[in-house]
């Protein structure tokens, strides 16, 4: 930045305000591998017993953490994949192609973009029931996709908008069809959007709680969010540190993605913030 302003007052202030999050995160890590006497903040011994849940057989009537994790992975990956693929085509159509009802569709996407469908969950349940997808992971995936899609389309449209028209024009005059132009010339230009969107929808699905809880309560399709919440809600449950261990285990992929792709995530609105 410019040399005319000092930055340390800002650093101090921000550091202070960030304390809650920092404290939460630090203790999230520390508490999973230590024991602390009640009423104290300083851990007094190292232990791995809070991680037992990874290896112990699940208690009767509870799900196995590994199958739950697998479910969560399937859920997040499929959602992310579908969202990305669908947004890639739809975003392009809305951004670049002459087609009937383009304005209407665009307005519709914008409306949906700002309108989470969680409130419609009863009817969504019914739709799933009609299509036989209730209580299955696939159903939750589709619903989550529908929820994320408007944002995805809008983000991708934003990224497509930034691709110079001349590249497409050049492609056309070079003899390529619209489809080839999209696949060979335009797609490679929207990589950042693709990555950001993919990551974001992965994280969104990974974190989703309400949908799986309502739409797939069955043990076979349980995900980590419901697993953890059920554990927390158990009013005669064991120690908090174990929740944290499960929580950390749950958040691990998020943190990894976050550490590696931090910059990419920040790109999510790179395609322009207006609208």
């Amino acid at each position: 930045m410019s040399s005319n302003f000092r930055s340390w007052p800002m650093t101090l202030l921000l550091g202070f305000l960030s304390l809650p999050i920092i404290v939460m995160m630090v203790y999230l890590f520390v508490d999973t591998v230590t024991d602390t006497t009640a009423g104290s903040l300083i851990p007094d011994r190292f232990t791995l017993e809070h991680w037992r849940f990874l290896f112990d057989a699940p208690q009767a009537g509870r799900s196995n953490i590994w199958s739950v994790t697998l479910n969560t992975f399937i859920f997040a990956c499929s959602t992310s994949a579908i969202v990305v693929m669908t947004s890639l085509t739809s975003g392009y159509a809305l951004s670049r192609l002459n087609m009937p009802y383009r304005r209407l569709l665009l307005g519709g996407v914008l409306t949906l973009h700002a309108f989470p469908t969680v409130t419609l969950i009863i009817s969504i349940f019914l739709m799933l029931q009609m299509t036989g997808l209730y209580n299955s992971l696939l159903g939750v995936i589709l619903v989550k996709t529908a929820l994320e899609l408007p944002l995805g389309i809008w983000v991708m449209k934003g990224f497509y908008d930034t691709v110079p028209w001349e590249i497409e024009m050049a492609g056309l005059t070079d003899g390529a069809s619209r489809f080839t132009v999209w696949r060979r010339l335009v797609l490679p230009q929207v990589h950042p959007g693709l990555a950001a969107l993919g990551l974001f929808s992965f994280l969104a699905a990974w974190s989703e709680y309400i949908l799986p809880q309502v739409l797939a309560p069955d043990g076979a399709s349980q995900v980590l969010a419901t697993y953890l919440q059920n554990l927390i809600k158990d009013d005669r449950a064991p120690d908090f540190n174990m929740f944290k261990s499960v929580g950390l285990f749950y958040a691990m992929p998020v943190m990894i993605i976050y550490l590696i792709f931090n910059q990419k995530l920040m790109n999510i609105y790179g395609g322009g913030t207006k609208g």
Partner: protein
Amino acid sequence: MRILLDQFTKTFGATTVIDKMSLDIESGEMLALLGPSGCGKSTTLFAICGIHRMNGGRLLFGERDVTHLPSQMRNVGVVFQNYALYPHMNAFDNIAFPLMIRKMAKPEIERKVLAIAELVHIEGLLKRKPAQLSGGQQQRVALARALVREPDILLLDEPLANLDAKLRLEMRSEIRRIQQETGISAVLVTHDQVEAMSMADRIAIMDQGQIVQLAAPKDMYDEPVTDFVASFLGNPPIAFLQGTVEGKTIRLENSDIVLPLDAQAAKQGNGTPIRIGVRPEHFQPEHPVKISGKISFIEEQGREELFDVTLSNGMRLRSVQANGGAFRLGDEVSWGLAADKVLTFDPSGRRI
């Protein structure tokens, strides 16, 4: 190949941008489209290459009517203003793209790309991505890409607009050389008059969607049909003086200054308001028809100097002199007009 635009009309929504324009470009010719911003130059190019559909009129390539042919099938090479190179491909792949689209065989593609790369002198740069190329090099890649599949027609949309002065000078001759060597018909869109004059066989000056004049560069410079054209060409620009006809002379407004008119202009009735245009090279100390004023501005331009001379009625004339060394700002001078070179225009701007 000859290009014939016949009664071409283009509208965007409610606004008609080009109305029944006709243009005939000869085979092997380079035609420059020159005009102020927004006059419809790019629109015309886009119609020729098929990016825009025409709202009226016909487009012929040679004898073939291509009005409704999609871009992909017109075989037109285009060099865009910002080159529109594919940023994710290296120079080789950029050039090879049109051939690849045609599913040409690999070795064949390689051969052709190398040949054209040699023509535009970028043999050594083929492995680089566009971002690693300088503006001039990018420009040559774009040119190579447009030429490699042997297009019938080459369209250049302000290809030099992004280059600095020195590079521009080089590129001009380069493009011209290649165009002449390949003997392709080409349309060059530009807003730079020097570029148009130096590169093209003929220039078409456009204004508000219409072709105002179509002529060879020298002719256009010497014989503009309107004051618009006259002011558009020439650097430093032409200076205009306002006045009324008095017999075979013109009396400048608000003054006693009287200058001779050529025969044609003198035919106008007494008292008719007219304008005369004087190019800086036609207002020089040694010319015969003297006119006095005060030097109000001097600009050193290296090998020449530019003078503004303000007449007694406040009008200005411009002069450019190679060795004007002796004159100082504020000097009263009496320099001469090359009366036969002076251009006269009627009030509507038409050349008389």
